[in-house]
């Protein structure tokens, strides 16, 4: 520590300069206290809750062991939610990565005025997901929504965005991609800007075309950023709740009920707190397992490998 600790109060608080332990605890203490109160305690409390049959009407929850988890495994609604979560994560991340990389390549051309468009492109990320959901619900309204109106002006029949079970999950993926593709773009674009140019010059000298250059040089070198963005987006998409709440409220016919929404329903609509906690912990287990697998088995190769 470089600040002066000559006064008695300062010495009392921060300790002796040669023994910074008190200083460390003093500075880290509030942060640790915050984490304990708002993260660690709730984590363990909800774990305990998942082993009880606590409901709003029941009052005190009785210990039931792993019964909630056993019930989950045979609950078709849980598997429906898990299926929807898997579809959303897979489609959303794939679409966002493809679009994000394409946008990064496009803006790497440094066309005139692209900095303005780049700024506008980032705006969706700044909007809270619940607002995005409500906004798009209005835009996609079949009676007076702007999107259907524009489509019908071209003589086309608008799809049943939020009324068809199959289409609703696609709509959810599209809206999520509208909001979060810029995130992938930023990550990939930053990496693209930092790539060494001599590799590309050498490839050019060797006569490599643009597609070969992209496939054999650019893409592998972007892979760390792509994996990073994919993992982040996968975790986020898996946890997504407020977008679903505002856009489709889990419907129609549970077509967009993901695990996070399912947990919300059980906890806040049906007041089955024990069961909802079990759903939430099952999400944690799935996330932990999934990210471990991705990071363990996805090989990130650098240039020359």
């Amino acid at each position: 520590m470089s600040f002066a600790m000559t006064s008695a109060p300062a010495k009392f608080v921060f300790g002796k300069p040669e023994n910074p332990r008190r200083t460390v605890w003093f500075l880290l203490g509030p942060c640790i206290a915050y984490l304990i109160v708002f993260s660690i305690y709730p984590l363990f409390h909800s774990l305990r809750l998942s082993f009880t049959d606590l409901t709003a009407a029941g009052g005190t929850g009785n210990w039931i062991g792993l019964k909630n988890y056993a019930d989950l495994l045979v609950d078709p609604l849980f598997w429906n939610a898990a299926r929807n979560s898997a579809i959303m994560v897979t489609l959303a991340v794939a679409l966002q990565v493809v679009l994000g990389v394409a946008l990064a390549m496009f803006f790497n051309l440094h066309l005139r005025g692209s900095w303005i468009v780049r700024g506008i492109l980032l705006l969706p990320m700044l909007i809270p997901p619940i607002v995005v959901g409500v906004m798009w619900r209005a835009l996609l309204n079949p009676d007076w929504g702007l999107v259907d109106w524009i489509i019908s002006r071209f003589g086309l029949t608008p799809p049943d965005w939020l009324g068809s079970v199959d289409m609703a999950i696609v709509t959810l993926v599209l809206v999520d991609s509208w909001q979060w593709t810029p995130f992938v773009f930023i990550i990939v674009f930053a990496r693209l800007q930092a790539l060494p140019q001599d590799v590309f010059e050498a490839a050019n000298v060797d006569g490599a075309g643009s597609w070969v250059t992209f496939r054999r040089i650019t893409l592998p070198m972007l892979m760390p950023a792509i994996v990073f963005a994919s993992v982040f987006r996968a975790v986020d998409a898996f946890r997504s709740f407020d977008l679903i709440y505002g856009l489709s409220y889990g419907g129609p016919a549970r077509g967009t009920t993901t695990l996070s929404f399912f947990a919300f329903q059980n906890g806040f609509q049906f007041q089955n707190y024990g069961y909802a906690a079990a759903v939430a912990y099952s999400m944690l287990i799935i996330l932990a397992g999934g990210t471990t697998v991705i990071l363990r088995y996805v090989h990130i190769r650098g240039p020359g490998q």
Partner: protein
Amino acid sequence: MDDNDQSESSRKSLAANRRDVLRAMAALGLTTGVLGRYGVSAAFGADFDWKKFAGTKLSLLMTGDENDHRALADLMPQFEAETGMTLEVTSPALGALIEKTLQLLQAAQSSFELIEFLGFLTTQQVGAGYYEQLNQYIDDPALTAPDWEIGDFLPPAMSNVGYFDMATKTVGKGKDIYGIPGMHSGSVIYFYRKDLFDAAGLKPATTWDEFKAAAEKLNSADVAGCSFIGANDFSLATVDWYTRFITTGGKLMSGSPQTKDFKPNVNSPEGIGALQMLIDVLPYAPKNVTKYGFAENVDGFSTGKIAQMVFWSTIAGPIFNTENSMVADKTGTGPVPAAPGQTPRAIQGGWGMGIPKNADPAKKQAAWLALTWLTSKAFNKYEVDKYQIDASRTSTFNDPELVAKFPYLPDSLKAASTADVIPTSHIPEFFQLNDAMNVEFNAALLGTQDAKTACDKVQAAWEAILKKAGHMA
């Protein structure tokens, strides 16, 4: 005292009297101005001390989805002037209200002294012991104005949100009162376009066959023959399906939770038939009716795009609002259709207001006083007059001035008086059951399954939920 002193004394005395008179006149003028502006006359006993808790600050949690909070905002200055108390109102949407209420009721101390709860949640919230028993306040003449009259509240509304027997955990039974109907009650009535029916030579539907026939005849490119809640929405099951179900002889549950034989009859012939009736009128409903919730139907009807529907009587507000509705003077109301030989009736809706048991003890009596003000005859009349909100009191429904102004009131009163408290609201799993039903029925309306399959699925889901909860062996 000489003459000058006497004269000075007299002048001072006269000046003081004049000041007193002027103060009294100012106070009278202010009060009259406040009362006159809002058109509500003071209906409280002159001998009753409304200001006994003056200076107390109270907090009220209530729904923001309907117009009650607007009526309250209008009359807040009057409330403060007459009681000397201040009332801070929080009015979120229904979903957020339920979540927040449960958190508050389970906290060490509630930050709200008054909470409005949905009638469907009476068993869940009142039954869990979260609310103060109100009999002690009702029977105390020092705390309850003489003309407040508990007996004036609609009996079905009192059964829905007021009476609760803690021993048997049964709503609507016993003598203990935990909630007061407010700020509105209500049921479901039939709305129809008088002009369209007259032009087509039709009479308002009294049976479901007539309803369907009228829908077919009146259906056009500009106006749908009928509408209903077709989305995965709370009211799909409770309004459109349930009304058709009970008016065709259906009985939703047999047995009781207490005897653990609470068995559903969703896939009975009446249950399947009620859903089939909705499927049968799909061709005469708006194109996107399977996505229609509360707001879409109200908007559709008030903009003249729907010829008839059964709906919560509370929508009379926007429908008969001459400023916003295109059909205010073209709309007629009546009892819901019913099968021949059946009584037209629908589900009992409405809200109750109570004092959380964990509220600040020092403020509970003040909270009760505020509650009586908010559920008074004067306030109820104002709500109906200004916003056409469903009344909670029999006297309000029968008020000659209101009836002359709003001809739908007798239909609303009849509906509210004969309304059916849906049996599943007696158990905490009500919303879970409702959700299971809405999902399958919405899927049937979308065409992904037929009515029988949907009802069979709901029956199975309900039995699983009821068995898990211990209401069914």
